[in-house]
């Protein structure tokens, strides 16, 4: 079969299509977005009507995927690492109930925080839920692991996590496909108690999960994704997890002199780790993310410092790995001939020229200019987070999806006079609606600006499920209709916007202002697409 040139994300998507999924469920988030987009644009998904619409958030995505699995069909759920926090409730409980149709949970981590607010390592979640985790080192493995993960999930009766990181997700390489498999038929569990997690059932299910740990361990020990490469120099033994393997081999093009245990499947293969530990003077653990494996093997005390890695300090504790960092850990020299000249300035991302968020921030800054420390603006996750940077310097907080509204509420509860939340349309329907309900319930004096560009813009312009119904949602949640104000954010409307914002922040209750203008990028793309068709 011909090689396809695929991003890591696309390789995962192609594998899921070939493995016979009946649906993908996801909320867009860098670096996971392209998985679902690939399925959305696939002919097969359209022809077979494979579910592929975006979900409101990661929790609803995971629950819907569980519903599909309940009905016997294969489903995949995809999200960025911090999305796993949002989906954590159904995710943890999916390991208690188990599955019927194969369920693969894709967590795309973002070490170095290229586009995120932390660099948490999803392998911890896999371990927490006590389910198998697969971690590919390249695009072909991403395909192979995703494909096999569905079989593994059905064989064990539990979800399987596939953990990737930004570098693999957004790098392209040739991938060879496997045989296409038909979708499952609709069928249900033999056990009517399986999905009803009343304590009486849940205790039984949990025992089943605990008992299955032995099987998961045995499968890991024998897995072809965990391979041992012998080496002559026993002064070091290397454990290379996922993509870290590439950076190791980049430095040893003619073969690594030390024995290497390449890890692609968890739980860790205990026997292989023990053998390596015994036969070598020192263990070097290379892993992308937190020092999970290093800590597991070294333990709390790591007597004799035999286990080294990010925790011991031979590698940096934070940030993404690269060939240079790994070279330094082995004392190898890199050749740097030229320095970056001093004239080179940082070029941070910025809101696009002509973007409606700019007009919104100009108006907001003017409206609260006189209030000084008596006004604070709570931001949220999206393009408009860039309002923190000059020239706007408009934001005082940005924590997680939806937190703008609830943090504003808490600060107002504490006595802040002018508490303003700025949130995007997609983020509002992701996690802001319940926050708004809390404020309505207590009639907390906050002003919520839903800066509506009618898409999830930062991740590339995906549909926003609240489009066209934001006013109705706010009214439905109980915001007084006269305090739901829609605006057209344009330079020429600046004075009117300032006036409306001033009016509403001086209203001692909940008000919502909705400046609405389509994302200029999405408009441009739609125009180009319609010209080409």
């Amino acid at each position: 079969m011909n090689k396809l040139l695929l991003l890591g994300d696309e390789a995962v998507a192609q594998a899921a299509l070939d493995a016979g999924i009946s649906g993908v469920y996801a909320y867009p988030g860098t670096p996971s977005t392209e998985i679902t987009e690939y399925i959305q644009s696939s002919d097969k998904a359209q022809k077979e009507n494979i579910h592929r619409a975006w979900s409101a958030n990661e929790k609803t995505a995971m629950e819907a995927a569980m519903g599909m699995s309940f009905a016997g069909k294969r489903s995949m759920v995809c999200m960025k690492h911090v999305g796993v926090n949002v989906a954590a409730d159904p995710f943890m409980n999916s390991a208690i109930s188990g599955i019927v149709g194969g369920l693969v949970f894709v967590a795309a981590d973002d070490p170095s925080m290229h586009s995120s607010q932390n660099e948490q390592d999803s392998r911890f979640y896999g371990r927490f839920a006590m389910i198998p985790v697969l971690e590919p080192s390249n695009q072909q493995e991403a395909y192979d692991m995703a494909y096999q993960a569905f079989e593994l999930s059905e064989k064990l009766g539990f979800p399987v996590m596939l953990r990737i990181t930004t570098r693999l997700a957004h790098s392209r390489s040739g991938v060879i496909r496997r045989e296409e498999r038909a979708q499952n038929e609709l069928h249900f569990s033999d056990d009517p108690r399986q999905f009803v997690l009343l304590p009486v059932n849940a205790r039984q299910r949990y025992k089943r999960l605990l008992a299955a740990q032995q099987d998961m361990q045995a499968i890991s020990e024998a897995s072809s994704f965990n391979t041992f490469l012998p080496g002559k120099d026993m002064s070091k033994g290397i454990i290379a997890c996922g993509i870290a393997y590439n950076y190791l081999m980049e430095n040893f093009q003619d073969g690594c002199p030390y024995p290497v245990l390449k890890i692609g499947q968890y739980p860790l293969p205990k026997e292989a780790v023990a053998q390596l530990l015994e036969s070598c003077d020192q263990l070097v653990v290379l892993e992308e993310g937190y020092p999970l494996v290093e800590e597991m093997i070294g333990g709390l005390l790591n007597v004799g410092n035999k286990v080294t890695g990010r925790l011991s300090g031979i590698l940096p504790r934070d940030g993404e790995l690269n060939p240079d960092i790994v070279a330094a850990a082995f004392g190898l020299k890199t050749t740097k001939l030229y320095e970056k000249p001093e004239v080179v300035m940082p070029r941070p991302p910025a809101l696009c020229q002509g973007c409606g968020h700019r007009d919104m921030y100009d108006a907001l800054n003017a409206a609260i200019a006189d209030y000084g420390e008596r006004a604070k603006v709570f931001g949220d996750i999206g393009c408009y987070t860039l309002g923190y940077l000059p020239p706007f310097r408009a934001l005082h907080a940005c924590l997680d999806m939806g937190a703008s509204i609830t943090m504003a509420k808490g600060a107002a509860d504490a006595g802040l006079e002018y508490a303003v939340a700025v949130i995007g349309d997609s983020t509002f329907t992701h996690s802001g609606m319940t926050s708004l309900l809390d404020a309505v319930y207590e009639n907390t004096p906050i002003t919520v600006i839903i800066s509506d560009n009618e898409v999830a813009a930062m991740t590339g312009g995906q549909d926003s499920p609240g489009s066209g119904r934001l006013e109705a949602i706010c009214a439905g949640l109980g915001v007084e209709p006269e305090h739901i104000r829609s605006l057209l954010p344009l330079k020429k409307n600046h004075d009117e916007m300032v006036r409306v914002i001033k009016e509403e922040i001086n209203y001692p209750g909940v008000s919502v202002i909705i400046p609405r203008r389509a994302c200029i990028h999405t408009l441009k793309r739609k125009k180009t697409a319609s010209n080409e068709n």
Partner: protein
Amino acid sequence: MKIDIILAGVGGQGILSIAAVIGEAALNQGLFMKQSEVHGMSQRGGDVQSNLRISDQAIYSDLIPTGKADLVLALEPMEALRYLSFLSVDGWLVSNSVPYVNIPNYPEEEKLQESISGFQRKVILDVDSIAREAGSVRAANMVLLGAASPFLQLDYSGLEQAVRHIFGRKGETVVELNLKALSMGKAIAEQVLKP
């Protein structure tokens, strides 16, 4: 055969269309390749780069190590300089000469020129003007690719074939425009390389 390229520019300039043509030409010659891209927040007018690696052997790292790049290919002069530390002993710098100024502290033109002129193995050209001459400023990326073509170790006809395929759905006029832009870029590099 092995060539490591760093493509650099500002988010929105379209460095990935250059990578797509090189990538397709490489795959058609049966070579291995890896190409890492920047998606997400940086695409909003920030500095973006792509690591493109081509080889007749399997490639491990998606990222090019410091001092190992054969070519830095940039759509913007300050962005070209940002990745200088990745260039190898024999590495070449091929860059657009026209600054893209979207930050308040962008360096003075003189200082930028000084920094660039200190570097020997380079092809610096005004890709926009040349593209306009070829027929449209939209072909600027292909001018830059043309200027890089003598350093790529790929058949020039393979690059042409990839251009035909990638721009094919936009019609013959667009294909011809891009092929012309490609050859004009190539001519300038060959002029520089003349002993």
